[in-house]
């Protein structure tokens, strides 16, 4: 008896210790595998375990919600702070040839000093800044630019599609690059966009990586590149599951008089990863965040230190139109009058006020954003008679009556034997979009169209939109950038994106087809004459307003640019004469803000 008791005690002890050992083994391996690192760039940088000094650090929130995973521009999941090569590239670590400024729609020099198209738009010549250097000291040359673009030809990366517009990219000399446009798909707008969205990579580094990985793209794209050789003002200093820390490169080439003439103000840029918007907002209130890029309701109540770009509603500059994309192949929705009636019925003012917390101005239906640069492309007087008002229930009812859509016994209209009953979807948890769609549903109810909201997981929604398995769905086509509004109209309405229901479409989810639209979309990028351009844009918008393949529901900013001035001051705001756009101090020409801000004390 005693013996068995003894054995059992030992076994219990063993069991517990086994569990503990199993655990601590894991924690040991953790030490070696955890992908963190500290580069000691200058003797004045913080030591491990210390806090990054508050008055030398710019804290940002809302740019990433998951752990940083890679610093490789060739990777598909560029979820780590310094990387974002969308239509307005982030310029912290990697740099593009030019920077786009959404305020004046112009391009500003960065690695490239100037660019010019030949008179017939067949060649674009870019001159590089001879001062530009990689952070390992080597010069940025025309060869690097050519190499980078060639990578897009070789592998499926984010800038591969540029080769649809490009015939060749060649180096004329060390600082001159020539981009030859494709003669059968001439689109100078998309080439210009490439100049401000493609990160230039160092050839001497990436050829070695390619060699090491045997040109196997899946290996190359899964390189973490945790100590990137790049040309930008910041280097990766530390990262783990909860944060990314960048440190200023004090040898940054941009301090040359030919570029900025000085270094950016913050020594560190830190992005803490928050669980959700609420956690980020709490940190903003506690002065733990200096620049916030997240939807924060009632920002005007956050106190005098919290500022937005505009001092009055809608507080943020419009930059994106979230659309209600209509599947024009569905019976009922294939009728333009039904689509128009839905557009007329929707209460846009309520969406702006309730779903968007007042951050969206009055909707003016068209393909254009309410920015001077886009509005001047259309003749407003010609569009006005076609534009619908917010919540025009009587008008919508009259229109539906006129096409013979009578109400059935359940109060739902029937058109040609087809009940007007639809589903509308967007991802669950996207609270402002969810709220907007609820308003759409209730507006439609008022005109006898039954609309059910459906909020699945993001991947389900994505799949539904791509395969055409939806009636109506919310989606944002391209916002601002040098190629918009062309790219927006193209993504929304070009039949090049058409795919039959069940097959994957990668844009034009509504499956809209119109040869007149295609012709206009082909012409617009090459029109240089202003009157002609205005004519074309007005015509395209007229077709949009008559056909209503999608309905803009609200305006959203490209970036929610909310700043906290308790530690740093001098953030650009409207009317300060700096011409720095509200791009969170780091996207496109928005990075100029880092050279302007200063300590508050």
């Amino acid at each position, binding site marked *: 008896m005693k013996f068995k008791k003894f054995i059992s005690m030992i076994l219990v002890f063993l069991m517990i210790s*086994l569990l503990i050992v199993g655990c601590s083994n894991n924690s040991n391996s953790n030490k070696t595998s955890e992908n963190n690192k500290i580069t000691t760039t200058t003797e004045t940088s913080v030591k491990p375990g210390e806090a990054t000094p508050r008055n030398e650090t710019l804290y940002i929130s809302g740019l990433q919600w998951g752990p940083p995973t890679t610093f490789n521009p060739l990777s598909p999941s560029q979820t780590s702070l310094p990387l974002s090569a969308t239509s307005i590239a982030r310029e912290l670590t990697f740099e593009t040839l030019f920077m786009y400024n959404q305020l004046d729609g112009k391009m500003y020099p960065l690695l490239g000093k100037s660019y010019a198209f030949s008179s017939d738009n067949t060649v674009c010549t870019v001159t590089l800044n001879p001062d530009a250097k990689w952070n390992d000291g080597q010069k940025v040359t025309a060869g690097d630019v050519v190499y980078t673009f060639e990578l897009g030809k070789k592998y499926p990366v984010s800038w591969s599609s540029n080769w649809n517009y490009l015939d060749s990219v060649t180096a004329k000399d060390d600082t001159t690059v020539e981009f030859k446009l494709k003669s059968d798909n001439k689109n100078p707008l998309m080439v210009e966009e490439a100049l401000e969205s493609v990160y230039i990579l160092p050839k001497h580094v990436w050829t070695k990586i390619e060699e090491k990985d045997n040109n196997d793209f899946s290996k190359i794209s899964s390189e973490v590149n945790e100590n990137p050789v790049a040309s930008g003002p910041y280097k990766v200093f530390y990262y783990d599951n909860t944060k990314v820390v960048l440190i200023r490169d004090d040898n940054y080439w941009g301090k040359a008089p030919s570029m900025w003439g000085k270094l950016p103000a913050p020594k560190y840029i830190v992005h803490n990863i928050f669980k959700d918007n609420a956690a980020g907002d709490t940190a903003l209130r506690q002065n733990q965040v200096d620049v916030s890029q997240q939807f924060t309701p009632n920002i005007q109540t956050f106190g005098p230190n919290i500022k937005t770009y505009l001092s009055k509603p809608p507080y943020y500059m419009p930059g994106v139109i979230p659309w209600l994309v209509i599947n024009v192949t569905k019976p009922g929705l294939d009728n333009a009058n039904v689509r128009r009636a839905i557009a007329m019925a929707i209460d846009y003012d309520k969406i702006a006020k309730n779903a968007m917390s007042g951050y969206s101005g009055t909707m003016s239906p068209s393909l254009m954003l309410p920015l001077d640069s886009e509005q001047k492309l259309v003749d407003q007087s010609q569009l006005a008679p076609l534009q619908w008002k917010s919540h025009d229930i009587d008008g919508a009812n009259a229109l539906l009556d006129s096409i013979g859509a009578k109400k059935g016994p359940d109060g739902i209209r029937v058109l040609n034997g087809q009940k007007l009953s639809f589903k509308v979807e967007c991802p669950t948890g996207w609270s402002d979009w969810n709220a907007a769609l609820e308003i759409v549903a209730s507006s439609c109810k008022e005109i006898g169209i039954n609309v059910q909201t459906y909020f699945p997981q993001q991947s*389900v929604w994505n799949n539904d939109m791509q395969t055409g398995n939806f009636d109506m769905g919310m989606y944002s086509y391209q916002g601002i950038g040098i190629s918009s509004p062309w790219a927006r109209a193209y993504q929304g309405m070009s039949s*090049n994106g058409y795919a039959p229901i069940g097959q994957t479409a990668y844009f034009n989810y509504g499956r809209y087809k119109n040869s007149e639209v295609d012709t206009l979309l082909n012409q617009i990028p090459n029109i240089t004459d202003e009157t002609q351009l205005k004519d074309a844009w007005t015509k395209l918008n007229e077709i949009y307003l008559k056909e209503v393949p999608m309905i803009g529901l609200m305006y959203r900013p490209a970036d929610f640019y909310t700043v906290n001035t308790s530690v740093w001051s001098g953030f650009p705001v409207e009317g300060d004469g700096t011409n720095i756009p509200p791009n969170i101090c780091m996207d496109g020409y928005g990075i100029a803000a880092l050279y302007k801000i200063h300590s508050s004390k």
Partner: protein
Amino acid sequence: MKSYRKYMTSKIAWYVLTFVVALFLNFLLPRLIPGNPVSTIVSKITSGMADTNSIKRVYETFEKEFGLNKPIWEQFLIYVSNLLHGNMGTSFGQYPRKVTDILASSIMWTIGLQLPAIIVSWILGNVLGVLAAYIKKGFDKVLFPVFLFISCIPSFGFAIVLVWLFAVALKIAPASGGYAFDMIPSPTLSFFLSVLQHYQLPFWSIVLVGIGGQSLGMREMSIYELNADYVKYCRLLGLKDSKIVRYVFKNAVLPQITGLALSLGTMVGGALITEIVFSYPGLGSVLFNAIAAQDFPLISGCTLLITTGVLIANFVIDIVYGLIDPRIKVAQQE
């Protein structure tokens, strides 16, 4: 001892079978969620592209990379063979990180939080249970119901109450995270103190909720034992109270050990809600995000870890009880 060996072999066989079934379910269940994970990942890279062919190329590259273009049984075989090499695959959502790396970087936080919390709440709960049964009076009527009440609050609700009270209202503890927002982790004292500061609320939220459940079981068992014949006999013999309580404790604590082993086994998955509420950088948060992103390999990795923990705990309990519980011994001899 021969029957014991037989008992052991059949147990082991059952556990191996259970493990294989669990492995298969771990693999299959996440893949039954509707939707396409590749479209989510690829939509990020292709958002600026205006050309169908290049988008398609990217799409196909990653379908191939993740092996999703193969039939599901083949994917399962690849999964198993990788697993035998200690490779749990590449995460979709946190591409290109390895699942094993992600698990390794977060499991330390989970165990660091859970192991002490479970042990502390087990010890406190059992002591409280015996005392409640023995002392009765005010102890059993006031303190015990209070803990019972706390243990009935869902743990996320209790965690939120703690955050509100100590972080928002009293401002004596940080509301979320594993360490201060401006710290860079390293083995230094200031960092350790910061971790400790952020440790308090999640720790107490687990301990306080756990105490009630543990003490309830212990109290019931102790009351049962206190009325047992041997206690009466001891009293008749005039043994000291402290000696009787020791006997009672020893007998009553036996089932509680099962409870402890089980909570240690489920430890990895147990802190899910606590971690999410406190944004604690552990496995719970990882699993939660993985599900949202349809990150199959990562979901499978997390659940495999949880399954293995539970199975090991159960197995050890089975072995121990085969030795010490007379009822099982009788069953073996039949």
